């Protein structure tokens, strides 16, 4: 049920978009109104979530330390895994954001016969890296539909992506990789018993949604083959705020578009916010310098203190009279 429910939800969403545009001719709704609304909700929701993170307190310096911290001069510091400077934090962040270093360091405990040991486990890292980079390239590639004239670098990326020149239209390598990676990430949750145990429907939902988007996009390119100039006209109408009523466009395009809209509306409110979240994670973005710099909890309010010196000032006269020793004398 945890797998079936999100799957059926994605199928239902796709069917809604398909039926509404194929039979009810709601092209303007699904091609203009829904995308605008979804985009606005995405940007606003994203900004709200990030602002909340930015405003929340970081009471402690809680850097995760994955190597030797800065110590005596002759002890070699792991500068990226236990950074003590701003540059080190930036380097660690770059490795984390671009290459998922923390996933790369993933290890697995296993009992073989009578022996218990730890080994490196890189499959999740590889699957995640393959998916995310494909996703990035695919998103960038799509900007050929939203920009006129199309910048040079988008053509370069497309050329590199279709460099093997397989078939017509040229096969994009990322199309293959993203479907493979998503399938792997899904199977991983189903096949491995422990990961299946901790997987909820909300973990499967984005996977099915992304698979639906990828497969519908692939079908639009290699299968039903939509008229690209017509699609670009609609897309350009959206970004120039002079929307064109989409007519005579393959209903499958609206399935693709609607699933993307669902994805970006859901994005700010679910686990997908790990994208900006990694930048706001105190375990990653703080330097481990708690022995050099005092980390002040921003929650701390000003405590009204009454020091002994002040106490002596207030009561010194009386203390001297009864012969008590005073610090100030």
């Amino acid at each position, binding site marked *: 049920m945890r797998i079936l429910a999100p799957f059926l939800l994605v199928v239902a969403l796709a069917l809604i978009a398909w039926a509404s545009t194929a039979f009810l001719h709601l092209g303007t709704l699904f091609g203009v109104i829904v995308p605008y609304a979804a985009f606005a909700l995405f940007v606003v929701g994203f900004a709200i979530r990030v602002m909340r993170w930015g405003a929340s307190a970081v009471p402690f310096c809680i850097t995760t330390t994955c190597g030797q911290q800065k110590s005596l001069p002759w002890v070699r510091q792991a500068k990226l895994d236990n950074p003590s400077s701003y540059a080190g934090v930036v380097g660690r962040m770059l490795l984390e954001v671009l290459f998922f270093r923390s996933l790369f360091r993933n290890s697995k405990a296993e009992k073989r016969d009578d022996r218990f040991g730890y080994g490196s486990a890189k499959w999740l890292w590889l699957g995640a890296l393959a998916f995310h980079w494909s996703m990035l390239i695919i998103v960038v590639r799509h900007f050929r539909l939203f920009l006129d004239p199309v910048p040079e670098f988008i053509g370069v990326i497309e050329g590199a992506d279709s460099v093997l020149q397989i078939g017509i239209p040229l096969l994009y390598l990322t199309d293959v990789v993203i479907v493979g990676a998503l399938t792997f990430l899904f199977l991983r949750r189903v096949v491995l018993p422990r990961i299946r145990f901790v997987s909820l429907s909300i973990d499967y939902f984005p996977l099915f949604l992304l698979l639906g988007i990828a497969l519908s996009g692939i079908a639009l390119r290699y299968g039903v083959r939509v008229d690209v100039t017509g699609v*670009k006209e609609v897309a350009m109408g959206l*970004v120039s705020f002079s929307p064109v009523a989409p007519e005579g466009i393959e209903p499958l395009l609206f399935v693709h578009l609607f699933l993307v809209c669902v994805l970006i509306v859901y994005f700010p409110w679910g686990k997908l916010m790990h994208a900006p979240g990694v930048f706001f994670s105190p375990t990653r973005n703080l330097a481990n310098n708690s022995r050099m710099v005092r980390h002040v909890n921003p929650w701390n309010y000003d405590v009204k203190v009454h020091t002994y010196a002040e106490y002596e000032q207030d009561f010194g006269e009386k203390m001297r009279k009864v012969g008590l020793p005073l610090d100030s004398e």
Partner: protein
Amino acid sequence: MARRKLTLIFIGVFCLIMVAPFILGAGKAHSAPELDLNTPEIAALDVKECIEPVEYMRSSHMTLLDEWRNDVVREGKTDYVSSSGQVYEMSLDDTCLSCHSNPDAFCESCHAYSNVELYCWECHGLTDDGVVGKG
């Protein structure tokens, strides 16, 4: 506070990336290019029809050409029977470009608009002045 400033910068950069296409696309009327069918060869035709219906040609001309290339180069076939039963020679130069003798306008306008690179001219109909109808 440095943290607040960084958060605002982050949101600012995010919003900037998000609205960039809208800024770049603002105020321009972006209709798809009109296909230029004004060639003397087409004007001379009695029935102005392509070898297959327009809809099919628009979305699938590339697969047709790909099949032609494979049929001609690998199988040695040269006759194409269209869906209306007419027979055409499988040739980009002698069939397609004999009517569409203006590939610089006819092909390139849409291909530039949707940023799809053409590599037909690496072999076909290339002269120093660009692409001409008959190679």
